[in-house]
């Protein structure tokens, strides 16, 4: 060994995700610019991908003719009603499963049996049960959001810190107080992160439902564009769906930051 002191080599650091601003947007911009350039030079044929500027133009047309709202409003109301039904029933069922062993024993196998069924396959059945109108669409979205919400909710209730519940019991809190003041707030983070998945599934099912028997709606719009091979309109519809996904995820993120500020 030599006598001259050397720096100790640094071996730490890394493995810690940082927040990098603007990169997400840049990826979108570069990708779209590349497609625009490719379609203009003919490197990408018109049948492979539509020109982004043409999609934008279609989109502007949609807004100007007022057709956007004609399609958006029914879709949004279907999504809102259907997922509100499914999510509220799912949270209620999940809390019951979390609290009562009897309900757990009865419901968990049922939910496990319902979960993997592709709900779209049941659409014809729903049409018979609830009619071709809004009823079957609500039911499809409700059932689709119900199962993931149940699973997320009872998992969240199971994960509530038992020492907090023991504490509540040791202070003589009533059962209802323990559920309302300890179990439900403790389960809220898990329920909210489950909602992200549930609502995304809700959007997928919304489109599926609108592809069958709907005059207006984003799904109907996409289906029509697809059968005419009108790629600009197809992509305009897809952009709306992506936007809807980003929007709902953003709303849940905002709610989480507001309601769950107590988290470490």
């Amino acid at each position, binding site marked *: 060994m030599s006598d001259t002191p050397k720096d100790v080599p640094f071996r730490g650091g890394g493995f810690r995700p940082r927040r990098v601003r603007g990169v997400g947007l840049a990826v979108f911009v570069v990708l779209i610019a590349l497609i625009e350039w490719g379609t203009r030079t003919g490197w990408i044929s018109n049948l492979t991908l539509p020109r982004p500027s043409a999609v934008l133009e279609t989109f502007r047309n949609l807004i100007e003719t007022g057709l956007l709202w004609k399609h958006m409003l029914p879709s949004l109301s279907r999504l809102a009603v259907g997922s509100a039904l499914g999510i509220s029933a799912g949270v209620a069922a999940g809390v019951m499963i979390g609290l009562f062993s009897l309900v757990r024993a009865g419901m968990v196998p049922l939910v496990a049996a319902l979960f993997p069924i592709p709900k779209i396959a049941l659409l014809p059945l729903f049409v018979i049960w609830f009619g071709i109108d809004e009823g079957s669409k609500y039911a499809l979205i409700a059932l689709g959001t119900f199962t993931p919400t149940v699973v997320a909710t009872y998992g969240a209730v199971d994960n509530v810190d038992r*020492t*907090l519940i*023991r*504490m*509540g*019991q*040791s*202070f*003589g*809190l*009533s059962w209802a*107080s323990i559920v309302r*003041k*300890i179990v439900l*707030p*403790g389960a809220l983070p898990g329920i909210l992160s489950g909602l992200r998945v549930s609502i995304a599934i809700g959007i997928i099912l919304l489109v599926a439902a609108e592809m069958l028997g709907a005059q207006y709606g984003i799904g109907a719009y996409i289906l029509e564009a697809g059968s005419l091979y009108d790629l600009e309109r197809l992509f305009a519809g897809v952009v709306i769906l992506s936007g809807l996904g980003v929007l709902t995820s953003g709303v849940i993120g905002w709610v989480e930051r507001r309601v*769950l*500020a*107590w*988290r*470490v």
Partner: protein
Amino acid sequence: MELTLEAVSHAYGDVTVLSDITLGIPEGQIVCIVGPSGCGKSTLLRFLGGLERPDTGQVLQSGPVPEGCLNPLTYVFQDFALLPWRDVAGNISLVLEDHGIRGARAEAIIADVLARTKLSDFHKALPKQLSGGMKQRVAIARALAVNPAVMLLDEPLSALDAQTRELLMDDLVTLWERAPFTAVYVTHNLSEAVRLGHRIVVLSRRPGTIREVVTIDTPLGERRAGDPALEAHQARLWHLMRQEAEAADKELGHV
């Protein structure tokens, strides 16, 4: 109020954790329970507060509860057990709400217990903003708010560093001197036991039995760290516990 354990034995599955424990908790005194890990001292405390039931034997309470007592048997937990979504005042009002105490009456109680635990400036702080010592002070304030007949402290200082532990021990002594309370204090730390215990119950390793009960007559307020009499007590306790702890350490877990 006095608590009495009579011939209490308990087993988890085929592992006997406590065997034939008979012990009285006299009013106005702090009884410390020490013993090697896994000897069932926390289990014993859960029996005393009715959070768990022993297989055999009886846990009895006798005598009147103090006036205005909302929850006679009140715990202070090792991990504080504060609701992270409620601020300091909210955590204390949690245990008052179920007794219909709200508004100005609740505010008065909260202000009083926060003052007694030197927390008056932390009314609106969330648990995540507080240090471990502060969190345990909040838990103690919450326990005081229900004016308990017996405080059941389950290793309350074990999650804290040595300096904070000293500070909180002083605070507990001050609280006791101002208004003597009955308490059962479970710990594995002998220096806490000799500082806070009027009586120290030494449990053997599993199955836990009472090896000895040591009474320390020095008033709590006169006990100082490094006091030769206390050191002697501590040395004696360690002598009693050493073999038990060694043997307990070598035991295989029953999982």
